[in-house]
């Protein structure tokens, strides 16, 4: 009842806009235009035949792992920009892979709580640091280039959005897929299975992009606030929060993806969202 019935429309629109090169799904060719120089906000593989922009995590590794640069002002700047404007609203509304997990969670089955697995939420920060930054920077070949470790070894989106649609229509790619594809497919199957029972397991535990945006939830222009004069600390917000946030205590918690379920669940209308551009007013 507290669920936002319209959020899926924004998620669908964002997924479609991110993958607007629809002919690619039939021709098996990825988009090669100039828009690919710009990153999309969510996790979306740039080898998806529909992708019209770049994956921010893939791009970050590409620049860090290049022989020319060892840090990317451009990509980190774009990530900070999205982060400070929206925080993890990106996860809740604009990320295609996040939406994919939500759809899987709608499959009728027993739903399990992740509250006791809270320690696993720290994993994603380790993945961001080790697989996205340190390994591509440090483990380099003779010309100074590093692999995109996260994309290569951990990212299930590459298989779902890139390998599978391309392999369906391209015999050459189909025949080139080997053990690495098998390993990543197992990861994807694992994420799909977990998503049916747990809410957004990849976002909670593994996603380095979510980890980056999480750092900005407290300082983003888009934020939540609790009116403590109205709040009775009844815990109705915490009960509906699938990201395990005690909203009445920490409305801008790092795990909050701004789905808004808590706002609708609050019987006292104590939780507010705002895009605060000035000191006192809000939009």
């Amino acid at each position: 009842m507290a669920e936002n019935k319209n959020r899926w429309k924004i998620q669908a629109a964002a997924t479609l806009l991110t993958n607007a090169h629809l002919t690619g799904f039939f021709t098996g060719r990825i988009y090669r235009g100039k828009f690919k120089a710009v990153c999309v906000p969510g996790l979306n593989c740039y080898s998806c035949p529909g992708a019209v922009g770049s994956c921010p995590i893939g791009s970050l590794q590409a620049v860090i792992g290049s022989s020319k640069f060892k840090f990317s002002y451009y990509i980190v700047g774009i990530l900070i920009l999205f982060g400070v404007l929206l925080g993890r609203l990106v996860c809740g509304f604009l990320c295609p892979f996040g939406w994919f997990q939500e759809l899987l969670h709608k499959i009728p089955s027993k739903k399990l709580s992740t509250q006791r697995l809270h320690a696993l939420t720290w994993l994603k920060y380790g993945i961001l640091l080790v697989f996205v930054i340190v390994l591509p920077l440090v483990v380099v070949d003779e010309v100074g280039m590093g692999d995109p470790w996260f994309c290569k070894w951990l990212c299930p989106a590459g298989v779902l959005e890139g390998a599978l649609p391309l392999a369906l229509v391209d015999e050459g790619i189909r025949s080139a897929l080997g053990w690495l594809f098998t390993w990543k497919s197992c990861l994807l199957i694992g994420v799909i299975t977990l998503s049916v029972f747990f809410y957004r397991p990849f976002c909670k535990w593994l996603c380095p992009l979510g980890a980056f945006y999480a750092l900005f939830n407290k300082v983003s222009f888009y934020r939540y606030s609790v009116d403590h004069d109205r709040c009775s600390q009844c815990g109705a917000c915490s009960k509906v929060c699938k990201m395990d946030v005690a909203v009445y205590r920490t409305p801008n918690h790092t795990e909050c993806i701004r789905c808004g379920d808590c706002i609708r669940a609050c019987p006292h209308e104590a939780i507010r969202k705002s895009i605060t551009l000035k000191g006192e007013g809000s939009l």
Partner: protein
Amino acid sequence: MLRKNRRSTFILLIAASMIAAGVFRGEVQTVLAKAVNLCLECVGIG
């Protein structure tokens, strides 16, 4: 609230400066070159 917004605005300006610095350094070409070609690692070819 005002203090928080000053901090956010400062971070926003840093982000804009970093993007400009990255464009000036030519990072965009590296991103584009990677993105317009099939990422073999991403799709699991190697």
